[in-house]
């Protein structure tokens, strides 16, 4: 990254640098490819639908020109859907990889250990029982999501550092909270199936521009925060002792990262519902693409956004009936979860 002349480096140091650059190149190519894919998915989402608009119309609408028909369909219906999907994907992706890296366990993502279930239950409660506004709904989802995380951490205290116990407790608490969601949805008989599906599996249907600011603000503030902390996160990945030895203030770094990750997951859940397994899948897929050893925050955010948009496209157009995005990500994620659980039971605790 610096402009030091290579001649100043010893052959050994040059070899180290060459290896580092080689791995850096793979990472750069991976990130670039993911970015291109994301742009392609965004364009596809905007063009496709009951009416297919040509790219020119889409660009015109985005440039605030008035295109009859397209202005409403693309501008009012499709843009909020895409923005919601991208923001939720980024938020879930960062939240998931932060948890997985910090706890060194791919099972430890906020959607597996019940945190998004807590946020979802709170959102449904706010909407059904309190008939609250979207601001209050988001706030309650955040508070309950943080409380769920705290409850899980408290119940798992004294467990192994790999988080085996935390994960089992989290899965249990998550199942309880999912039951709460189902119960509340049963009670809310006036709801249509689509709205109910959003809080069960996550959906982009009915995304409205006015519901997006809380999530957008959260992503704009918290994603850079996690990025800044990602160096500490990489030290924490080596274990508490090594991180301390490397000069990381582990307690503070851990707390900030957990709060940021939980908040991202909760804001996304309050907006789109708990889109199944995006947080869980984004990090491991990102690691496959860019290689391990460097920070996964940016690649996981991109993978998360691509997963949400890709799954939503499949859900909308691949079958006779349209499925919400969470059904598709759920089908993608479930086999991976099973593989990990089998691996975990074989290795005993952490995989």
């Amino acid at each position, binding site marked *: *990254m610096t402009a030091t002349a290579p001649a100043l*480096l010893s052959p050994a*140091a040059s070899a180290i640098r060459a290896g*580092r650059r*080689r*791995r850096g190149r793979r990472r750069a190519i991976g990130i670039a490819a993911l970015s291109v894919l994301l742009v392609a998915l965004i364009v596809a989402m905007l063009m496709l639908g009951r009416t297919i608009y040509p790219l020119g119309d889409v660009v015109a609408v985005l440039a605030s020109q008035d295109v009859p028909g397209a202005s409403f369909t693309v501008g009012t219906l499709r843009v909020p859907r895409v923005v919601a999907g991208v923001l939720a994907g980024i938020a879930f992706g960062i939240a998931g990889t932060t948890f997985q*890296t910090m706890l060194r366990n791919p099972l430890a993502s906020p959607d597996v250990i019940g945190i998004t279930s807590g946020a979802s239950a709170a959102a449904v409660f706010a909407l059904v029982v309190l008939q609250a506004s979207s601001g209050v709904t988001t706030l309650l989802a955040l508070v309950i999501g943080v409380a769920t995380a705290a409850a899980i951490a408290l119940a798992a205290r004294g467990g192994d550092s790999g988080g085996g116990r935390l994960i089992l407790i989290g899965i249990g608490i998550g199942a309880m909270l999912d039951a709460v969601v189902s119960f509340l949805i049963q009670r809310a008989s006036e709801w249509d199936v689509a709205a109910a599906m959003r809080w069960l599996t996550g959906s982009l249907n009915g995304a409205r521009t006015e519901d997006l600011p809380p999530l957008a603000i959260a992503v704009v503030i918290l994603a850079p925060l996690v990025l800044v902390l990602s160096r500490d996160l990489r030290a924490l990945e*080596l*274990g508490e002792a090594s991180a301390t*030895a490397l000069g990381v203030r582990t307690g503070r770094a851990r707390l900030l990262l957990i709060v940021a990750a939980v908040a991202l997951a909760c804001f996304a859940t309050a907006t789109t519902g708990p889109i199944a397994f995006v947080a869980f899948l984004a990090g491991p897929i990102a690691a496959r693409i860019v290689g391990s050893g460097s920070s996964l925050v940016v690649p996981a955010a991109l993978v998360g956004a691509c997963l949400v948009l890709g799954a939503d496209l499949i859900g909308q157009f691949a079958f006779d009936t349209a499925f919400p995005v969470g059904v598709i990500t759920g089908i993608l994620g479930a086999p991976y979860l099973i593989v990990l659980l089998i691996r975990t039971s074989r290795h005993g605790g952490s995989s």
Partner: protein
Amino acid sequence: MTDQHTLSSRDLRAGYGGTTIVDGVDLTLPAGRISVIVGANACGKSTLLKTLSRLIPATSGQVLLDGERIDRLPTKQLARTLGLLPQQPIAPEGIAVADLVGRGRHPHQKLFRSWTAEDDRAVADALETTGVSELADRAVDELSGGQRQRVWIAMALAQETDVLLLDEPTTFLDLAHQVEVLDLLTDLNRSRGTTIAMVLHDINLAARYADHLFAMRAGRLVATGAPRDVVTADLVREVFGLESDVIPDPVSGSPLILPRGRHHTTAVREPADHSGARA
């Protein structure tokens, strides 16, 4: 050669959840030498090392680096002087050796100017010193236990601290690799002047490789000094509760402990205690 730094403790107490495990330890690690902390299981030697390296807080007393309390020093500044290799460090899945060793550079890096040629040099030096240069681009997962321990030591070296603490660096290694690691640390001490302190399980290897021994029993130091001055049958009885003969090691001349169990002790016991007075 590195600067000489002095790590010491004053009436140090530490423990977990109300149980005192280190109970009033005063010590000073001799600068530029190799110190080894020995003692029976659960005597507090590992807890002492963890407290010295600020992994666990002192419940009373102080740990001082050049006279300053380590809990008051900025953590990053401290991490540039005091390094630690914990007992069971964890490597991220799939990470390359050079990348893992590079993480030792953390306290030297700034937020937005993260990697410099100086970091490449430090990583290359660390890999060369530990003899794992040719493994630089391999994944840590693929290495043998001995190779992996060298990589972890390389990471601690890349941190370029003048004081290095190691918590049982030879556990899980076979005898050949134990000797290899201890030779490596001795090289490091002699070439860079690094002050080294470690916990070792094997008292005979400790007596051979230590310039200075700290023997612990029940959370307290019971003997400190050069191995030849302090290792006696009496000390072994006091620290390990074990009857033994102590003879000069025919290889190194350092004290060698020959345990006397209930079986296979047919030789007549030597009457004289050869190794002189305790410190």
